């Protein structure tokens, strides 16, 4: 399973690689990283159907996570990948907007990786 992680924080890559070191080692999961919404779109356009799951931050400079979500859900990408939103703002408004735009799940920072792992395994 190929998972695209979108966040403007570069350390997210290290964190995910550490957290999913077993899964990566066992080839259960493969992670790709994009550090902005724009970068994520470019990757998705270039690598159709590769990523089945997208984990995106909401608050990013430039294109926000929600805009990226709308792009993914409204255009291209058939079948649409699972998109999980991750944000520091776990408020209802953010949640509702994300859900309205077609987000599959909504996670709050700091991330509970155990919870995330459960969810990812459920999708698989």
């Amino acid at each position, binding site marked *: 399973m190929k998972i695209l992680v979108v966040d403007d*924080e570069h*350390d997210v890559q*290290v*964190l995910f690689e*550490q*957290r999913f070191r077993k899964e990566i080692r066992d080839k259960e999961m493969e992670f790709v990283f994009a550090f902005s919404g724009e970068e994520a779109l470019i990757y998705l356009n270039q690598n159709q159907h590769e990523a089945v799951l997208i984990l995106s931050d909401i*608050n990013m*400079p*430039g*294109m*926000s996570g*929600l*805009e990226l979500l709308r792009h993914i859900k409204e255009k291209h990408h058939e079948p649409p990948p699972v998109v999980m939103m991750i944000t*520091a*703002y776990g408020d209802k*408004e*953010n949640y509702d*907007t994300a859900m309205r735009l077609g987000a599959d799940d909504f996670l709050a*920072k*700091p*991330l509970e*990786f155990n919870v995330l792992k459960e969810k990812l395994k459920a999708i698989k």
Partner: protein
Amino acid sequence: MRLIFKMALFLLPALAEAQLSHVDSLKAAFENVTDGPLKFKAASNVYFYYQELNRDSALFYTEQQLMIAGRQHNKIAEGVALVSKSYQLMGLGRYAESLKCLQQAFVIAEDKSNEKNERWDYFLTRFDGNSRLLLLSYTHHMYALLMLSTENLEQQILHFKIAGQIAKEINYLPRIQLAYLNLGQSYLDAKMPDSALYFEKQAEQTALQADDKNFTVALARAYLGTVQMHMGDIYKALSNDSMSLNYYYRSLQTTTANNNRTSLSRVCLRLSKYYIERGNKDSALYYSLKNLAILKTLGLVAGNETNLGLGYENVYLSYKLNNQFDSAFKYQGLALVTKDSLANVRIKNLAEFQKLTYSEQLRLQNVEKEKVVYQDKVRTYFLLAGIGVLLLLAIIFYRNNRQKHKAKIKIEQAYDNLKATQQQLIQSEKMASLGELTAGIAHEIQNPLNFVNNFSEVNSELIGEMKDELAKGNIDEAKTIANDIDENEQKIIFHGKRADAIVKGMLQHSRSSSGVKEPTDINALADEYLRLAYHGLRAKDKSFNATMKTDFDESIGKINIIPQDIGRVILNLITNAFYAAPLPPEGGFKNPQIKHEPTVWVSTKKVGDKVLISVRDNGPGIPQKILDKIFQPFFTTKPTGQGTGLGLSLSYDIVKAHGGELKVETKEGEGTTFIIQLPVN
């Protein structure tokens, strides 16, 4: 100013008789007679001779009379001499001295005990009645004349009337006639010619009663000359010139016959003026020269009618009329000099008199004692009134002061309230910008926390794994894990510090400025606040989006500023820029086809000894009409409740306090650039 013709003539019954006698024999009689009533009578004879001829000589004989009266202790005689003296002094213009004599005479005449004096023959006309009352009439009459000389119309009429009244009581015709005569003149002065004519006719009638027994015919004729002159004056006032001239000529004859030189002088003056007015050269010159000749024999006279200056003037006018310019010129000079010096004398005399009349009036308030009591009362009243006024003033001042004090307190309170409100507003502005920050900060802090938590968890997992590997004896594998742990630990430390910095920054922002300048990396500061502002806005408004572009001059290094203050300015400018950037210009975007990309540029640049921090947006720009208001406190274009209107105002003050400038460049429809200009040192 036209001179008022009003010098009174005082004629005494002795005049005609005196004139009949030869003066030398009169003087001889005075020298030879023994001291007493007869010597007084002899002195009177010489005095009456000189009375209207020469004032200095007349004055000499009044002094003689006074000495005789003093030696003989005859108060009535002294009173009569004093009144005669006052007349001569008056004629010389010495009004103050004249009044003093009259004051003494009044004291004598009002004292009934003086009636016990030995009866003397005080006047040339025989009188058997009350001598004291005759003296009183004489004194009132003289006082009235003094009032006339000093131009007090009201007082002169009053005292002439009193004099006439007393004379009637004692039936002394010469005084009755004189009272009428002078009242006529006074009423003429009062511009009542009809009343004047009445009194002059009374005077004429009284004269007709003369029967040589107690009023000699000769004396009656002497008065008649003056009455006739007054009649002439009255007819002149009634514009009857022929009657006027007729009476003047009659007067001229009578006064010449009786050798009343004072009256003669006055009649000549009238006639010369009459002829000058009518251009009759010969007559004018004749009477003016005659007047002058008489005036010269009377001595230097400062009366307002028997006046040497006036005499010269008439001569000058007459010569001018005759085209004799040499003589005219000579007399013009004399007239000017004499009039001038006599006017000065007269003013001085009148001034002295004024001083004296003031005390005389107080005397007339009655007895000295009453006066003192009265004055004391007046003083007390004045004192009380003064105290009252002072109290009132004090109360007014006190009230005023209290009101001012109250007003001052009110103003101070209002000022304090205002200051407090201002402080609150400044604080709320800080809080507002803090609110903008909080969302950004929350996001910013969650990110590092995310790493701290998760890397810690990863590390504890890794430590477990490392232990397993060590137990298995896989040293190499354990070493690799240990390296990962170390790497993660660095991340934990880094993000922990990051969170710490964010919290500190937040605290610094909410705190009042420390006011301490410290070397600060302006680029880092600008970048930090740019991120905070961006995230803050994104957190508040999900749809918000804008492009951020930065261009930092890495050569700036650190500059000495108060970081939280300048940070606040940068935050404010960036927040404004983010607010403005997406807004359409007035009238909308020119080409709706081209998508407007809201952009904010933050750049720094070192120029000479200055650092420029620019915050630019591509918003609608600031309209020219409000451009000069944007730095004013409480000015805002944001909807009510959304902006305090203090952001730019505070920013301006902060930059100024740093010795810098906050400038704005804007172009409508294209955007705005705010430039913070700070000194490097």
